[in-house]
C-alpha cells in the first residue's frame, strides 16, 4: 500500500514539474481496496481497472518504473506512450487494462470470465468499478449476463462516494450498490474499504465461490479519495472537514499499521523499513523512467491495427 501511495505522490510531483501531459486521477486514500482485492486473488487471476487505476495495476504486480515511463511519455512505458495514466494495462500480469470510460470494462470483464469457463482455466476476473459506474447501463448488462451464465467474475465497487462531484447520495437510487445484487440473485457484500484485511477476506470468500462455479458477486468497498477527481478539481462539492476527518481517523495505511503493531505481527522497525523500501523503490523507478527513450513518432502510422 505504501508503494501505491508513494507512486501517486511521485506522480503529483512530476505533474507539478510539468513533466506529464494531460491530467491524472489519483487514488490516494483508497489503497486498501486495490491491495485487499488483488492480494486475495490467485496466480493467473485477472483484473480490469478504471480511470483511477494506478493502485490496481501496482497491487496486481505492475512494475512502477514502466508505469512512470508511460506517464512520462516514454517508449518503454506499458502502452509505449499511447495510453497514459488512464489506460495502463499490464496484460502479462493479468491486468487487462484501465479504462477511461466509466463502466467500460464491466462487459469486458464478463467476456474475459467467459473465456475462463470455456477454457476451464479455474481462473477468475476481478472487475474494479466506481460508485458512479453503478448508474451506467453497462453495469446492468454486464452483471445480468454474468449472473445468468454463472461467470467467474467478482464485481468490485470501489465506492469513494463521489463521481466527479456528484455524491452517491444524490446519484444512486436505493443507496447501496451491493444491495442491487439482490435483483440479480447473487451475493452483495459491503465492506469497510479502508480496512485492507476486511477487503481481503471478503474477496477471498467471493473469489472462491466464483472459482467453484457459483457465479458472480458484487463486493462494495466503501472508501474515500483524498485528492480531487482530477487536477482541475477545486473541491467545491465537499467540505475540508469531511476530507480531514477521513485522513485523520480512517486512513487505510495508518489503520493497517496500527493493527500490525497491536497484533505484534510486525515491529515498529519492520514497519518503518517497509515504508523506506517503498520510498526507495519509487525513487529508483522515477529515475529509471526519466532516462528511457521517448515514445516513437515513427511507429504511429498503421499502429491502430494488429
Amino acid at each position, binding site marked *: 500500500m505504501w508503494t501505491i501511495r508513494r507512486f501517486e505522490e511521485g506522480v503529483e510531483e512530476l505533474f507539478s514539474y510539468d513533466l506529464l501531459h494531460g491530467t491524472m486521477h489519483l487514488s490516494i486514500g483508497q489503497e486498501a481496496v486495490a491491495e485487499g482485492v488483488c492480494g486475495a486473488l490467485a496466480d493467473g487471476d485477472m483484473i480490469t481497472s478504471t480511470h483511477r487505476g494506478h493502485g490496481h495495476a501496482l497491487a496486481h504486480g505492475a512494475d512502477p518504473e514502466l508505469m512512470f515511463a508511460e506517464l512520462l511519455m516514454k517508449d518503454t512505458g506499458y502502452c509505449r*506512450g499511447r495510453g497514459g495514466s488512464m*489506460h495502463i*494495462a499490464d496484460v502479462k500480469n493479468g491486468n487487462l487494462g484501465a*479504462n477511461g470510460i466509466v463502466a*467500460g470494462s464491466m462487459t469486458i470483464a464478463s*467476456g*474475459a470470465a467467459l*473465456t475462463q469457463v*470455456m477454457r476451464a482455466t479455474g481462473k477468475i476476473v476481478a472487475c474494479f468499478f466506481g460508485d458512479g459506474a453503478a448508474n451506467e447501463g453497462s453495469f446492468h448488462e454486464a452483471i445480468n449476463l454474468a449472473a445468468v451464465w454463472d461467470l467467474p467474475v467478482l464485481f468490485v465497487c470501489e465506492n469513494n462516494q463521489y463521481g466527479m462531484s456528484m455524491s452517491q447520495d444524490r446519484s444512486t437510487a436505493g443507496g447501496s450498490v451491493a444491495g442491487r445484487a439482490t435483483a440479480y440473485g447473487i451475493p452483495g457484500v459491503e465492506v469497510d474499504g479502508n480496512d485492507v484485511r476486511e477487503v481481503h477476506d471478503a474477496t477471498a470468500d467471493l473469489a472462491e465461490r466464483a472459482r467453484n462455479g457459483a457465479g458472480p458477486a458484487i463486493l462494495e468497498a466503501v472508501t474515500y479519495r483524498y485528492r480531487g477527481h482530477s487536477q482541475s478539481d477545486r473541491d467545491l462539492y465537499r467540505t475540508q472537514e469531511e476530507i480531514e476527518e477521513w485522513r485523520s481517523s480512517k486512513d487505510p495505511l495508518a489503520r493497517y499499521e496500527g493493527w500490525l503493531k497491536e497484533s505484534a505481527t510486525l515491529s515498529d522497525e519492520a514497519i518503518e523499513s517497509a515504508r523506506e523500501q517503498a520510498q526507495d523503490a519509487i525513487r529508483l523507478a522515477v529515475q529509471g523512467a526519466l532516462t528511457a527513450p521517448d515514445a516513437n513518432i515513427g511507429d504511429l502510422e498503421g499502429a*491502430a491495427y494488429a
Partner: protein
Amino acid sequence: MPEHTTYAEAVNAALRLLLSEDDRVFLAGEDIGVYGGAFGVTDGLVGEFGEDRVRDTPISEDAIAGLAVGAAMTGMRPVVEIQFSDFVVNAMDAIVNQAAKLHFMYGGQVEVPMVIRAPGGGGTGAAAQHSQSLEAWFAHVPGLKVVMPATVQDAHDLLLASVLDPNPVIHLEHKLLYKTEGPFEPRAKIADTPARIGEAAILREGSDLTIAAYSIMAIRALEAAETVSDFGIEAEVIDMRTVKPLDMATVRSSVKRTGRLLVAHEAPAPVGVGAEIVAGVVESDALDYLLAPVRRVCGVDVPMPYARDLERNAIPQTENVVEAARELMKS
C-alpha cells in the same frame, strides 16, 4: 460445377466451418440458438455444436459486444450477432471506445480478434429503426475493419477472412441479400478462403465508365450495367467488398481506363463512404483521366420510411443507377 445456394446459407456454412475447425470460435447473440436468428442464419448450429458454443444472450447489445472484446482479448475468437445493425447504437461504447482502441491504446499488448455480424439495409418495410446502413460510422473509427459482402460466395469467404483477421471486424450483411441465390463453393478449411479484407473485385469489365459499389448496390450496379450495355455503354462494375480499408488502387486503375466514375451505396450521401471513394480518386493522378464530373447514387437523406413507395424511393434502385450512368455518358 459449383453448387448454388443462398447468401444466408453461405454465411451459415461459414459459421459451421469456423465452429468445426477452430475451438476458439463461439457465437453469441439474441435468439441465435433454437430460433436460428431473426433471419435464420444460425439455423441448426446450436443442435450441432451445443449451447456452450452457440450462445443465446439476453437482449443486451452492449454486453454482447463487450463480452466479445473481453473474450477476444483473452484468446477466444468470438463471432457475435447484433440482430439488426440499427441496434449497434446500444453497443457503440464497446465497439468504438473498447474494441477499436485497445490494441493501440495498450501499446500492442493485446489483439481483439472479434467479428460482429449484423444485418443492415432497407427494403423490408421495417422502417426507420430496422433499415439503416451505418457502415460510414464504423469506417470512420481507426482500429475497426468493415466488410460488406454482395455475393453468395463472398458472404462465405469474407466471413472466414474476417475471423482470420486479428482485428475487430464489422461484417454487415444486407437483409435483402439473404435469400438471393448464386454459385457457391464451400471451403474445406478456413484458410482456404481466397477473399482478402481490403481487396475489391471487378464483377464486370467495361471501358466506358466505372461503377464502384458494395453490398446490395454492387448487385444493382451489375444489373444496371447489363441494361446500359443495350444502349452501347459498357460499364465496369467494382464490388468494393470492404469499406475499411478501401481498395482504392483497383478503383483508380479502372478510372484511368474508363475516364468516368459513378459511386453507388444505399446509405445517404452526406459524409458517406462514396465521398471517401471519390476523394481517393481525385487525390490521385486518376484525376487527370476524368472526362466528366463524378456522380454518386445514394439513399435519400431521410430516416427510412415505411410505405412501400416511400421506402422504394428512399433507396437507390437499379433504374437510378441506369439513369445516372446514361447521364454520365452524356457529359
